[in-house]
């Protein structure tokens, strides 16, 4: 699924790196615990989180992720957006809650490897 489509499904706003929204991701992870993302996520390129912190971006960078979506209408500060720009990570803000955001993306076709997700990817 293209990142631009993810933003559309989430009714979200792209806050930075809009030039990379043509990039595709095949699976996603939803978590507010970066420890869990670092421990359990395998190849998910989209992180949905309610944690508004530079560590959300830094964790995404460590995991080679392409996009971070902040749920519950949380607005990242300029320091967070600057970090995302530095690493070329698209940042989206959505008014949806985590459960709804994950559900809509899954129903929209962003499923990835379901077995892998159940065992290792969905973490929160």
């Amino acid at each position, binding site marked *: 699924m293209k990142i631009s489509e993810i933003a559309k499904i989430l009714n979200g706003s792209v806050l930075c790196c809009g030039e990379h929204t043509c990039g595709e991701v095949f699976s996603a992870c939803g978590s507010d615990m970066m*420890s*869990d993302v670092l421990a359990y996520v395998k190849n998910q390129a989209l992180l949905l989180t309610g944690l508004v912190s530079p560590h959300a971006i*830094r964790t995404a960078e*460590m995991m080679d992720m392409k996009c971070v979506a902040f749920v519950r209408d949380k607005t990242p500060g300029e320091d967070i957006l600057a970090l995302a720009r530095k690493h070329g990570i698209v940042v989206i803000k959505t008014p949806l809650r985590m459960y709804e955001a994950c559900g809509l993306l899954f129903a929209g076709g962003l499923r990835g490897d379901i077995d892998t997700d159940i065992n290792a990817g969905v973490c929160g």
Partner: protein
Amino acid sequence: MAEKYLTYEYNIDGENFTTAGEASVNLKRVLRRIGFAPEVIKRASIAMYEGEINMVIHAGGGVARVNIYEDKIVITLDDNGPGIADVELAMKEGYSTAPDKIRSMGFGAGMGLPNMKRNADKLEISTRLGEGTTITMTITVAATATAND
């Protein structure tokens, strides 16, 4: 032993949780530039990141030294913190002594040391209560695992 490419030393600031992880981002950039395989870079970066975070949360910072060889990456984390009272317990997934404040910042789920072990091929812990801890992680590079091959 294969020839050593590079040595890096990072001072980890124990006062600023927000900037924790910057050394790991720098290391990742260095490893990419050298041309290690993505899987090796990811493992080394995650191990270092978890180590950095742990040093800030539990030890008030410290020093991270990274020796990069042709066939392995050796990360040594040295701190003067309180030491680890029970290493076996600390290695258990989910066990954490991190305060709630750290959990509210997305860490302290008791996955740090287990995740460091998971991503390193070898992990050694030397700790003395009241004196500090030294953790050495070795990430082995398979003969075929460089991006330039």
